[in-house]
């Protein structure tokens, strides 16, 4: 059906059609509210070494496999008789002690891929390892439940696969005023200013106009809602701290965004790992702890769930360059206020039963975590978003 014919026939259209400036009207339409629950996803990009993050300090195989990298027992922040946190993660251990952290061990999927790109795609799209999807799981969620780009925000300048839907995508920004400025360019602004028509997405041209309208209204909405809100907390002065600070400002200014995604780089530690990883873990924990504090102060922590993952873990055995190579299953952190099972959700990795590459085998499919979050946190039907049905876990 032609776009204009459709308009004429549609009863909805008749009322909209005579609105002088469609764009204006569109912006004023109350957007379906999705409830207060927010999800923040953080990717430790490059593949974090989970074994030197959450350390099994009574395990001989750990010490034998890593003569130069294994962390000495006495340096660790012990939380059980067998497990200690890397000493650079005191702020995260503090969250653990408060019951705000659930650690899920051995998370992965069958036939793990060890390429950063492919493994990231798999985590972003929630696909099988031999399946190629062109939409991300958050993108599909936005498409089904959000309907506007600002329903999902990536703290960056370009959008990752995780936020891409079929016809609706999230939006990327780490600075709303820059985003707002980008739609203020003369042609963008003027072309839209002259639009009087409803654009439906059947045709490519209609789709382009529709995306422009949405980009503009999303950028404007994000900018105007958040511009007066400034976090008073003293975040660590680094780019990751900045990403989380901006996220807190978004959440605390009551922006109607459901899902956030930020990636923190630097975890691909093939050589001289120890100092590099220690610094990264410190940066991560300090920023996260400040983020939680900020949300608590603003009474939004109870409605925010933070999931931290890495595209893969690293090999159990260290390499010749005092680093570690790409591995398989890894731990995942869930941070929130009212967790059902704070602490360790399941057993530490079994280092006596590794796969043929010498990597940790998965016991929990990452998609069961997604399914649980969709069902029990976002109140969404997981099988329509993940294209399949998975068991749910009971951590929230």
């Amino acid at each position, binding site marked *: 059906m032609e776009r204009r014919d459709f308009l004429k026939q549609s009863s909805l259209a008749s009322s909209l059609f005579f609105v002088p400036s469609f764009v204006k009207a569109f912006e004023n339409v109350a957007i379906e509210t999705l409830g207060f629950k927010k999800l923040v996803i953080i990717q430790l*990009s*490059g*593949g974090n070494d989970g074994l030197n993050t959450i350390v099994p300090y009574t395990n001989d195989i750990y010490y034998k496999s890593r003569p130069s990298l294994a962390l000495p027992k006495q340096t660790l922040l012990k939380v059980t008789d067998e497990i200690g946190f890397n000493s650079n993660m005191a702020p995260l251990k503090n969250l653990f002690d408060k019951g705000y952290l659930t650690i899920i061990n051995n998370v992965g999927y069958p036939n793990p891929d060890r390429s*950063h*790109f*492919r493994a*990231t*795609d798999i985590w972003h799209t929630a696909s099988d390892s031999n399946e*190629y999807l*062109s939409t991300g799981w958050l993108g599909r969620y936005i498409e089904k439940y959000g309907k506007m*780009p600002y329903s999902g925000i990536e703290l*960056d*300048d*370009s*959008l*990752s*696969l995780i936020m*891409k839907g*079929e*016809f609706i*995508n*999230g*939006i*990327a920004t780490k600075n709303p005023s*820059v985003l707002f*400025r*980008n*739609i203020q*360019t003369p*042609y*963008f602004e*003027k*072309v839209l200013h*002259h*639009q*009087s*028509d409803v654009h439906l997405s059947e*045709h*490519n*041209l209609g*789709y*382009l*106009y529709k*995306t*422009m309208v*949405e*980009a503009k209204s*999303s*950028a404007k909405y994000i900018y105007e809602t958040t511009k007066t809100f400034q976090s008073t907390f003293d975040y660590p002065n*680094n*780019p*990751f701290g900045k990403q989380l600070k901006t996220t807190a400002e978004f959440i605390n200014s009551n922006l109607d965004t459901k899902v956030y995604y930020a*990636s*923190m*780089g*630097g975890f*691909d530690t093939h050589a001289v790992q120890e100092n*590099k990883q220690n*610094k990264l873990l410190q*940066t991560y924990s300090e920023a996260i702890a400040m983020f939680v504090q900020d949300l608590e102060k603003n009474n939004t922590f109870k409605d925010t769930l933070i999931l931290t993952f890495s595209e893969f873990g690293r090999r159990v055995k260290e390499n010749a360059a005092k680093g570690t190579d790409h591995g398989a299953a890894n731990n995942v952190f869930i941070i929130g206020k009212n967790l059902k099972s704070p602490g360790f959700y399941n057993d530490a990795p079994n280092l006596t039963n590794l796969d043929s590459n010498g990597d940790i085998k998965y016991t929990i499919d990452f998609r069961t975590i997604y399914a649980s979050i969709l069902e029990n946190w976002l109140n969404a039907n997981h099988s329509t978003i993940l294209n399949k049905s998975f068991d749910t876990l009971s951590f929230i």
Partner: protein
Amino acid sequence: MLMNKRNIQHLYLRGGFGINSNKLKELEDKATKDVVKELFDDSENYIPLKIDLSELRIMVIDDNKKNSEKTAKKEAKMRLQKLNRQKTKELNYAWIDRLKQPRSILKEKMTLFWANVFVCQDNNNIFHLQQYNNTLRKFALGNFKDFVKAIAKEPSMSKYLNNRQNVKESPNENFARELMELFTLGVGNYSERDIKAAARAFTGWSFKFNGDFYLRENKHDFGQKTFFGKTGNFDGEEIIDIILEQKQCARFICTKIYYYFVNPKPNEKHIEELANFFYEDYDIKKLMHYIFSSDWFYNDENIGVKIKSPIELLVGIQTIVPVEFQKKQQLYNLQKLMGQILLNPPNVAGWKGNKSWIDANTLMLRLKLSAILLNNAIIDIEEKGEFEDSFDDYYKIQKKQNNYIKTIVSWNVFESEYGILDLPELKEVLIVAEMDKDTNAFIENLKFSSNKDFCIQLMSIPEYQLC
């Protein structure tokens, strides 16, 4: 039938990256068959794309010499990897440069198309990668059967889909599966048994250091296989023969061709017509000739309805106004921000194309691209770091990036060709999509300053995103 301007533009946008004004005038009112013939005649010759690799040749030899010392060898290997990555970028720039030349444009467009069918990546050996790219070019308008066989023997493909690890004792099915799923038949048109049989037939397929194919006989399974109901001691080539006997193979390829060259919205009747024609001898040139000579190719519903890929957009602008990047890395970054880096596909399924190029962020950039390239507009968008980067480097990429893309714009070339056109003529040359009525009114009422400005304005409206 005589061709009008719009039909010629359509032909050149789909069979190339657009057409400049002089050429358009020259071809106007010529017979379709003559215009189409000229497009094919221009692509008659095969001109391989080659960059200077002498530096690497010396290093490869050096590396072999230093076998004795372990650390030196490791260092040499790292240098080699770095140089390979750098040369891959050079090949990327050389390829884009090639696309800007009007000669042989159909062959180049086909090469780009096939690179997204036989998707492959090779970051470790630029010799193999360059050879692979030229195999795509060589067969781009050739026979599809020869093409598939040549691809199956390419070192880059062999590495990318693990066919080198495919040996008699433990067959690796990766290549066999993607051959059928993504290259020839499409998912659901073969059985798991067929995959197992095909994998066995490709066991032992390998290559020499210089890139030549060879069969490791002791790794090859010479035994009997049953494939698509046929039984015999098939090898890989015979497997490909049997795959092409399936009508589905012609249908699958024609569906892709139709999506890319005619319309992202399928027309089953036309696709079936093409499949019947292609199935006769799998001659790609004949197929393309058939399409470009069909009346329905020039139907209104097929003109200006496809969303340009980032490469089509980048090259298309430069077809009208020649641009040189002073810092080639910025050309690379632009590809990355728009989501299409040549030689660097997202995965073996390739780029999905059409609407999937567009999100709020890419669209803002795309609409501003002509102003960025031609008018020193600021680009307020930073790229992401790489997986391998350290924390500092991961974010430094963003900081150090300059807000301007440094280009040398040959406005004199534009002026000599387009300076004499009046505004409706300029619009006609740049926009083929049917204009939105409000945008059209806006454009018509713009205060005119110069053809140069008007050109940038036209390239900044959504209609220019379509071809």
